[in-house]
C-alpha cells in the first residue's frame, strides 16, 4: 500500500534527525541568548565563566546540572499523571517543528494543511499544563494551571485569526506556499493588514509562551512557578524551561514563515538569492526571538483579569474586523 | 514645632487638663509630651475623648506597650500599660500610663478606638501577661502558643545571662583593669 522506497526513508530519517538536533540546539542557544540579551539590556554582563568565552556553555552546564538533579514526586501527587505531564507539554512543541520550512527543500513534511496542523498541535500543550497543575495536589500549582489554561485558550484565538489572515492572503494552508506567496513579507505588505496581523500574532505568541508581560501562570512572585511548583530535575526542565525555549524558537520560526517571508530574502532582489535560505530563515527567526527577549525586561506583568479582558475585548474583535478587511482587500484591490 | 496649627506643649497640657481633667491624674510635661496617669476603668472614655475632642484630635496611634516598674527603685511602682498617641492637627504628644494590678493584670482594650492597638495589645498580652478584655482576638503574636511565662516581666530572667555572665569587658574601667 505504501510505496516508499528506501531512499525516501533515508531522506525522511535524515530530515527528522536534522530537525531533532535543531530543536535542542535552538533551545540551548535561545537560553543563552536570553541570559545575555537580558543582561546587556540591563547594563550587566550576565554569565561570563562557563565554557570560557563569554560563558557560552552556560545553558549546556545548566542542562547537565538538571540532568543530575534528583527527581522528586510529592507523596500527595497523582504519580502517573504527574510524571507524564512534562512529556505532554514537550511533545506537541517538538511536533510543531515538523512543518516549518527551514529552506525550500528542508522541511520534514510539507502538509497541505500545514498551518492548520500548527495551530492544532500548538494548543495541545494546554492539556499538559492542566495535567501538571492538577496532579501536583498543590494549591499554587492548581491556581497556576487554571490560569494557564484560561490564558492559553484566550490567546489561541488572536493567533488563529492572524493565521487565517495569512491563509486568506496566500490562498493556501501549506507553509511552503505561504512563503512562496510573499514577494514582500506579509508583515510589510499588504499595507496595514499584514502589520496588524503580525502584531496580533506576536502578542498572542508572547502570551502562549507565558512570558512577561503575560506570565501570570508562572508568576514567581505570586504562585511560585504555577503548575511546575512541585517539579524538579529533568521534568522541570521539560515542562518549563525547555518548553519555554522550544516554544520561543518554534514561534520565532512560525512568525518568520508566516509574516517575514521565511527562507526568502527580505526584499525580492536577485543578488540576495546567493545567500542560502537557511540563513534568511535563521536570521528572521533570531530577530523574532530577540523581539520576544526584548519584551521581557521591558514590561511588568498584567493581572489575570486584565489579561483576559485584553484578549476578549480588544485582540479578538480586532482580529475579526481584520479578517473582513482582508477579505475585502483580496477581492477588490 | 513647625507643623502648621501646632501648639506649644504648655498649651497642650492646658487643653488636656481642660478636656480630661476629672479622669486623669498627675498630668505633667515630659520632654514636650503631655504625660498623665489614667485608671483602667477610665481608659476607654479617656482615649475616646482624646481621639474625638476637637481641641485635641489625637487620631494618630503611636504605640501601646507595657512597663514593669517593680525594680525601678524608689517611686517605681508596679506594672503599667503605656500608650502614646499623637495629634497631627495640633502636634500634641500624649503619653498615657495605665497602672494595672500586678496580681491580676487587666486593662480594657482600646482596639475599638485605635485599630492599631490590635497587634500592640496582643504583643503586650504575651510579653507582660496583661489581659485586654474587649480585644476580639487576644492570641499570641510573636511567641509560640505553648510558650510559658511572660518574657518582658522583670522576674523573667534571661537564662543565658544566669548561666554565664557576659564574657567581655562591660565598661572602660574593666578593660583597663585587664578584662578582655
Amino acid at each position, binding site marked *: 500500500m505504501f510505496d516508499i522506497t528506501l531512499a525516501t526513508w533515508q531522506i525522511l530519517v535524515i530530515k527528522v534527525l536534522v530537525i531533532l538536533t535543531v530543536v535542542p540546539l535552538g533551545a540551548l542557544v535561545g537560553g543563552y541568548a536570553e541570559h545575555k540579551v537580558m543582561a546587556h539590556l540591563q547594563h550587566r554582563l550576565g554569565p561570563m565563566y562557563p565554557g570560557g568565552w563569554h560563558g557560552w556553555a552556560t545553558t549546556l552546564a545548566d542542562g547537565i546540572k538538571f540532568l543530575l538533579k534528583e527527581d522528586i514526586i510529592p507523596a500527595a501527587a497523582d504519580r502517573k499523571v504527574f510524571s507524564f505531564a512534562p512529556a505532554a507539554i514537550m511533545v506537541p512543541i517538538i511536533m510543531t517543528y515538523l512543518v516549518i520550512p527551514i529552506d525550500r527543500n528542508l522541511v520534514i513534511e510539507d502538509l497541505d494543511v500545514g498551518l492548520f496542523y500548527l495551530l492544532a498541535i500548538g494548543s495541545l500543550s494546554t492539556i499538559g499544563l492542566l495535567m501538571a497543575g492538577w496532579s501536583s495536589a498543590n494549591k499554587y500549582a492548581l491556581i497556576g494551571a487554571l*490560569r494557564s489554561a484560561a490564558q492559553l485558550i484566550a490567546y489561541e484565538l488572536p493567533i488563529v485569526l492572524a493565521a487565517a489572515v495569512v491563509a486568506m492572503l496566500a490562498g493556501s494552508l501549506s507553509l511552503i506556499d505561504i512563503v512562496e506567496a510573499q514577494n514582500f513579507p506579509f508583515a510589510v505588505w499588504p499595507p496595514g493588514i499584514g502589520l496588524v496581523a503580525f502584531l496580533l500574532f506576536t502578542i498572542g505568541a508572547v502570551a502562549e509562551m507565558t512570558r512577561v508581560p503575560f506570565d501570570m501562570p508562572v508568576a514567581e512572585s505570586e504562585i*511560585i512557578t504555577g503548575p511546575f511548583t512541585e517539579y524538579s530535575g529533568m521534568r522541570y526542565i521539560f515542562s518549563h524551561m525547555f518548553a519555554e525555549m522550544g516554544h520561543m524558537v518554534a514561534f520565532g520560526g512560525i512568525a518568520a514563515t508566516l509574516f517575514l517571508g521565511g527562507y526568502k530574502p527580505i526584499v525580492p532582489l536577485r543578488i540576495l538569492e546567493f545567500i542560502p535560505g537557511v540563513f534568511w530563515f535563521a536570521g528572521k527567526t533570531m530577530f523574532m526571538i530577540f523581539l520576544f527577549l526584548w519584551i521581557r525586561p521591558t514590561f511588568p506583568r498584567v493581572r489575570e483579569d486584565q489579561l483576559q479582558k485584553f484578549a476578549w475585548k480588544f485582540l479578538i474583535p480586532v482580529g475579526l474586523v481584520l479578517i473582513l478587511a482582508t477579505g475585502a482587500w483580496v477581492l477588490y484591490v | 514645632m513647625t507643623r502648621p496649627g501646632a501648639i506649644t506643649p504648655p498649651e497642650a497640657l492646658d487643653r488636656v487638663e481642660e478636656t480630661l481633667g476629672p479622669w486623669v491624674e498627675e498630668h505633667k510635661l515630659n520632654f514636650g509630651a503631655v504625660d498623665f496617669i489614667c485608671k483602667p476603668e477610665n481608659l476607654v472614655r479617656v482615649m475616646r475623648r482624646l481621639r474625638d475632642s476637637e481641641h485635641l484630635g489625637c487620631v494618630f496611634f503611636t*504605640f501601646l506597650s507595657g512597663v514593669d516598674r517593680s525594680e525601678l527603685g524608689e517611686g517605681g511602682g508596679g506594672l503599667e500599660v503605656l500608650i502614646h498617641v499623637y495629634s497631627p492637627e495640633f502636634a500634641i504628644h500624649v503619653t498615657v500610663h495605665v497602672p494595672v494590678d500586678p496580681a491580676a493584670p487587666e486593662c480594657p482594650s482600646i482596639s475599638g478606638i485605635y485599630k492599631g492597638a490590635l*497587634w500592640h495589645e496582643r504583643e503586650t498580652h504575651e510579653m507582660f501577661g496583661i489581659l485586654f478584655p474587649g480585644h476580639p482576638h487576644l492570641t499570641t503574636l510573636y511567641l509560640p502558643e505553648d510558650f510559658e511565662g511572660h518574657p518582658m516581666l522583670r522576674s523573667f530572667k534571661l537564662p543565658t545571662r544566669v548561666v554565664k555572665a557576659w564574657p567581655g569587658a*562591660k565598661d572602660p*574601667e574593666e578593660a583597663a583593669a585587664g578584662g578582655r
Partner: protein
Amino acid sequence: MAMTTEGPKPASRGAGAEGRLQTEEMILNVGPQHPATHGVFRLLATIDGEILINAEPVIGYMHRGYEKLVEQRDYRQITNLVSRMDWLSGINNELPLAMAVEQLMEIEVPPRAQYLRVILCEMNRILNHLMFFASFGAELGAITPTFYAFREREDIQRVMEATTGGRMHFGFFRPGGLKEDVPRGFVDEALKGVRQVIERLPDYENLLVGNEIFKQRTIDVGVLDREAAYSYGVTGPIARGSGIDMDIRKDEPYLVYDKFDFDVCSAPNGDCFDRFWVLVGEVGESARIVEQAIEDLPPGPIMGKVPRVVQAPAGEVYVRTENPLGELGMYLVSDGDRRPYRLKIRTPSYSNVSALSHVLANTYVSDMIAILGSFFFVLGDIDR
C-alpha cells in the same frame, strides 16, 4: 486617576451564570517561604478562585526579643543591636537611641556630628528606598528596575562602607556624636553618588511610573484610606501615600533638618501607585538634603562631652525619628544605670503591616502581591 478614598470595594460577584456551583474557599499560606514576602512573613489567605476574601498576617518567625536583650546590655552594645532591626536602614535605627540617651544626659552634639548624621541618614534612606523601588518592580514582574536600582545603590553603599566599615550594620552613631570622623575624599565621593542618583532617577522612574501596565496594576489597587492610616498608626511613605503629610523631619525637626530646603512628598489616593510615587519622590528629596548638607558641612569635633561611662540619669523620654519606612520611636525608661531599664521600640513596619489585613480584603490574588510590595516593610523591623 480616580479620587476614591473609600476602602476596598465589597465583592459584587459579576457573573450571573455562577453562584449555583458548589465551591469551597481555600486557605492558602503565602509565606513564610515565599518569594514575595521579603523574608519569613506569613499571610494566611482565604481565597476563592482568583479572589482573595481576606488575609491575616502572621509574624514572629524571626522575633529576637530586642526589648528584652537591651535590658542586659549597656548603651554602647545596644547601638550595634538596634542597627540590626531594620537591616536596610541600619544607621537610621541607631539615631533615636543615641538621641534618647543624649536628651536624658543633656549632651550637646557638635554641629559637624549633626551634619554628618543627617548626611549618613539620608544616604541610608536613599539605599532603603532604592531597594524597595527594585523589589516592587520585581514583584510586578518588571526585572530591569532591580538591576538599575542596585547599580545606583552600590555607589552610595561604597561611600557608606568607606565611612563606617559596614555595608548593612554600621554601628557608627554613639551617644554624643559619631564613632569617628569621615575619611578623606568622603565629600567628593558622596556628592558624586547622590548627584548620579538625581541625574538618573527620572529615567528609572519612567521605567515604572510611565508604564501603562504598571499603572493598570497599581492605580486604585489596595486603597488605604486616611482614617485607617491614622488609626493603625501607619507612617512613612505609606501614610504619605494616603494623603497624610506627616514627616517628623519637617514637623519636629531633630538634628539640623530645619536648615535644609526639602519637600514632603505626599499623594492623595492611598493606592499602590501613590505609595510608590511617594517613595520615588523621597529619593530625590533625600539626595537634595545630602547635597545641601555636604555643602554646608562645618569643621570641628565629632564627639560631644561624654563621660567615660555612659549612664543615663533616671527619667523617661520618647524620641521619634523619621526612619525610611516611617516613625521609629524609642521610649527609654532609665533608672540611672549603664543599661536601660526599659526600652520600648516602636518600629514603623510593625504598625504599617498591621494595617495590611484591612487593605487586603476582597482583592485579587495578583493584587495581593502588588499591595505587599507597596507596603514597604522589613521583617526584622516588624519582629524586632
